[in-house]
């Protein structure tokens, strides 16, 4: 895979797909804070985009992961053994897991190179479904 080096400065390619999240993490959380008594207050900083910034493992998270595993299983079954859903042995499933992942990895490498973030993963998944 390649890594994307993003020049921080200049007027070039901003905003990028995941750029806003990066900026929020940085300039709302970090940086020098000046004494409150020196500051005059703004009418209110309007921030619509701060959500999902704190990662707390919850039942929701667990269910989402389980669903992702389920999707993974289903796509393997489709690719590996059409018509033979269910009744698989564990070792067989494991092999297919690997095969499906490698295949997906190859098909989707182009995607990875050009994009980042959640959109990309969604795109990747739907693509491998179309292919299967």
């Amino acid at each position, binding site marked *: 895979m390649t*890594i994307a*080096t*993003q020049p*921080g*400065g*200049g007027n070039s390619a901003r*905003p990028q797909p995941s*750029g*806003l999240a*990066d900026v*929020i*993490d*940085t*300039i*709302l*959380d*970090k*940086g*020098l*804070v*000046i*004494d409150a008594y*020196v*500051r*005059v*207050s*703004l*009418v*209110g900083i*309007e921030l619509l985009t701060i959500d*999902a910034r*704190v*990662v707390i*493992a919850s039942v929701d*998270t*667990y*269910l*989402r*992961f*389980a669903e*992702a*595993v*389920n999707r*993974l*299983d*289903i796509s393997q079954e489709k690719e590996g053994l059409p018509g033979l*859903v269910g009744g*698989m042995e*564990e070792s067989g*499933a*494991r092999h297919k*897991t*690997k095969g499906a*992942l490698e295949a*997906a*990895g190859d098909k989707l490498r182009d995607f*990875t190179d050009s994009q*980042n973030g959640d959109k*990309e*993963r969604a795109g990747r998944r739907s693509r491998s479904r179309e292919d299967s």
Partner: protein
Amino acid sequence: MTTQTEDRQAGDGRTGVYVYGILPGDIEVEPGAPGVGDPPGEVRAVRYRDLTALVSDVDLDRPLGRAEDLFAHEELLDSSAAEVAVLPLRFGAVLASEDAVADELLGPHYDEFSAALRQLDGHAEYVVKGRYVEDAVLGEVLEENPEAARLGQQISGGDPDATRDQRIQLGEIVAEAIEARRQADTRALGDAVAERVTASVVRPPTHELDAVYAAFLVETGKAEALRQAIEQLAEQWGDRMDLRLIGPLAAYDFVGSGAPAGN
């Protein structure tokens, strides 16, 4: 709730001076550099002895915080940081006037700002952010953890309500396995860049699939070596992770975040 008339009256006069950051020496600001606000205020310099603050006028009756405002703040500071040491202020610092910037901010903190700028001299910040590729990391977990694989089989194609307990159990195993990987990969990142960085800060994860997230203070001369180290890691980690190197940035993570500048 204010009336229209009050809004207009208030909007007529109440402006403040938005402060972006503090730089050493006699910095010239490119004319026309856009700041925060709508329309964007024009960025200018306020000087106190050999310190310069980058500021622009801002309407106090309009909320800030649009994506454009955030980008304007960061882009101005990051483009400066590529050239010279910068003390970046957290987004949203507004003082009453130019005089207040000089007399209440730069003056009283002259010594500590100068010392901090000397320490940052010749450095910039780089952020490394890696996120696991979900299918790949799930595949790893299922492969190494028979219990997870067994639960995966149990829920496969089943009624979601009937298998809720198994789903939660499986998800918990996955979350723990990802956390263990996150810690191991963060250590590996730290080891890989140790020789190239002056200081480092591990940032807390912001997403459940975050793999590594850290900021590094890097000497200008070592930036290329850092890039190579990260590239090598990316190769090593391969398709299981999307890895990004972001920078050069102003040293947001290395200016005593959280503590007030004064006292």
